[in-house]
């Protein structure tokens, strides 16, 4: 890395600016009751060094990126990552998959139930991420109220159980379908809106759902929430807490597999192509005979469906729901998962869901900075790597017995 004096000078100026900028909030801390002022001068140093280093790194990155773009004409051609490369090579594909599934199956037996429990949460975020990925990543609709559908799933199990003693397995599809139905109801008037208005309306919808749950005591028991929600049963078998946790883990593994299977097939279908096209150019899409409202609605409802399913599982796992679990920040976390993973990339979303949920769990020191980091990730990814950690790769299609096959294969 070559750094000219000029660049270092610039970074020094940046660092000076940040010292000024953060001065009142980072340095002064007042206690209005005891009437004391604490001057935290050491923070000046941290800010100065931190912003200097980050500024240098950012510049180096941008220089490298510009150079890479200059070298390669086909800069917009997304290259397959190593992982995807391996997954696409039959020789590696199956051993890799077997290895991963072996690890996943053995996990609760290799580690403690506590670890399995954390992993279950991570798996839930994978499904949430994959669900939102259909809406944001594939169809390009910025949904900031995704958590509302999650809440609808969770509360539908809690309330159905409370009022009608409905079991987990009966509530699971109902929760998913109810969320999808709400998705349709919201989507119908809203999906005609422009992208940024859509984001705001969905944000508003998410908050409305949460506030209604908080205030409508007769219906949802308000802020105190609903407790004693039963865990899922297994043919009427009594289970210890430990076993119930492990059972929950396997349940989630199953759901993740199902989600990956379904989402993958959807993406590579007539519908999936239409979603992608819609993300790129709505007017051209309509001119090609695509009914954009209908296609958007299916994306919206399908995304909501997965959130509803995970909502039911969430209620069953924690045996307790209250509105505080469904704030805007939850939507933001799921959005961060999709953005970090790479819009529209299934492998990417799985990786980033694991990173973003497991890292703060295992590095307890970091967990305080979790939300700060999520915010920073959203900004940094947009600026430095909008395609995400693992970019989605366009599929190439195979043809059956035709004269053109030879010509085609020459091309690849």
């Amino acid at each position, binding site marked *: 890395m070559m750094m000219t004096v000029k660049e270092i000078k610039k970074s020094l100026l940046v660092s000076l600016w940040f010292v000024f900028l953060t001065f009142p909030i980072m340095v002064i801390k007042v206690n209005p009751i005891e009437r004391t002022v604490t001057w935290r001068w050491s923070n000046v140093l941290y800010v100065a060094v931190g912003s200097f280093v980050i500024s240098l790194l950012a510049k180096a990155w941008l220089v490298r990126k510009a150079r890479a773009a200059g070298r390669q004409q*086909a800069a*917009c*051609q997304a290259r397959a990552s190593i992982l995807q490369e391996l997954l696409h090579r039959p020789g590696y594909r199956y051993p890799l998959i077997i290895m991963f599934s072996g690890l996943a199956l053995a996990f609760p037996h290799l580690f403690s139930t506590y670890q399995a429990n954390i992993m279950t949460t991570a798996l839930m975020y994978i499904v949430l991420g994959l669900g939102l990925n259909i809406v944001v990543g594939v169809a390009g609709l910025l949904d900031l109220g995704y958590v509302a559908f999650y809440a609808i799933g969770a509360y539908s199990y809690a309330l159905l159980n409370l009022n009608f003693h409905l079991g987990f397995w009966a509530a699971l599809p109902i929760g998913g379908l109810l969320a999808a139905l709400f998705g349709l109801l919201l989507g119908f008037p809203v999906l005609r809106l422009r992208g940024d208005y859509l984001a705001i309306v969905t944000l508003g919808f998410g908050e409305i759902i949460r506030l209604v749950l908080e205030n409508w005591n007769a219906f949802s028991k308000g802020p105190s929430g609903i407790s004693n929600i039963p865990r899922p049963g297994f043919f009427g078998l009594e289970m210890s807490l430990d076993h119930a946790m492990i059972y929950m883990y396997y349940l989630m593994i199953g759901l993740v597999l199902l989600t990956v299977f*379904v989402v993958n*097939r*959807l993406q590579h*279908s*007539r*519908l*999936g*192509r*239409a979603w*992608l*096209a819609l993300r*790129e*150019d709505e*007017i*051209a*899409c*309509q*001119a*090609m*005979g*695509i*009914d*954009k409202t209908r296609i958007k609605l*299916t994306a919206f409802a*399908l995304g909501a469906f997965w959130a509803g399913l995970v909502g039911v599982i969430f209620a069953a796992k924690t045996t307790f729901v209250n509105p505080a679990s469904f704030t805007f920040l939850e939507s933001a976390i799921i959005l961060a998962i999709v953005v970090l993973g790479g819009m529209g990339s299934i492998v990417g979303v799985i990786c980033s869901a694991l990173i973003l949920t497991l890292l703060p769990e295992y590095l307890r020191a970091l967990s305080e900075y979790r939300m700060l980091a999520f915010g920073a990730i959203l900004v940094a990814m947009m600026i430095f790597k909008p395609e995400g950690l693992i970019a989605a790769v*366009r*599929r*190439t*299609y195979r*043809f*059956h017995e*035709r004269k*053109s096959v030879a*010509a*085609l294969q020459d*091309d*690849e």
Partner: protein
Amino acid sequence: MMNKRMSKPILDVSGLTMDFGGIRALDHLDFDVQATEIVALIGPNGAGKTTLFNCLTGIYQPTDGEIRLACPKTGQQTRLNGLKPNKITEKGMARTFQNIRLFSQMTVLENVMIGRHCRTHSLILGAILRNRKTREEEQETIHKSYEILEKVGLAGQVDELAGNLSYGAQRRLEIARALATEPFLLLLDEPAAGMNPQETVELVTLIRQIRDEGHAILLIEHDMKLVMTLSDRVVVMDYGEKIAEGTPEQIRTNREVIKAYLGEDGE
């Protein structure tokens, strides 16, 4: 001077008017297109040609007037006013865009497959279960798309991202994508813009071939040589009005047209 044809037109526009606020972009426009005919729409910049296309394809709602489309096979007539763009495409009229609007992050083949969307039917369940019907439909989509790409000369680049194609190839891909919707009337908005002479010659051949396969074509073009060699009939517009209509020979000598292009004191 206009030879009144006996057959019913497939596109019949009458009294078409479009206002934007106080500005009249189209002013009581009348014209028609017959089956398997190539009609060129010419006129100075700002004459309202692209606005006309946007009205025809449902992107703008015209202030006044009638647009009727009749399928040459069934003879069934539809009023297009108030229909959504996608419905109009389903009725059998497809278009390309002046400022190319391809799905640039998708492959060439996928772009054409998107065009097949309105002629195929599989939905969520089909996509998930991937049953026999869906698989067959998908194969058919691929084959038909590939055939169209062969026709426009892009068969060698099916897996390329559309955004990486050369300018001329992108214009041809737009035509391919529109053809995939199985239109009987194809609207081309400046198909030769930005093409080199060689590419333009190939384009003329391509458009002729498309017509010979039974499609009618309405095109906006500034390249007069192309217009004069290709079209059966020319409609000239200026300030939102039709100022002349006729065969290329008639238009070449029309005083109104010369005036519109060269200004009042033109020769």
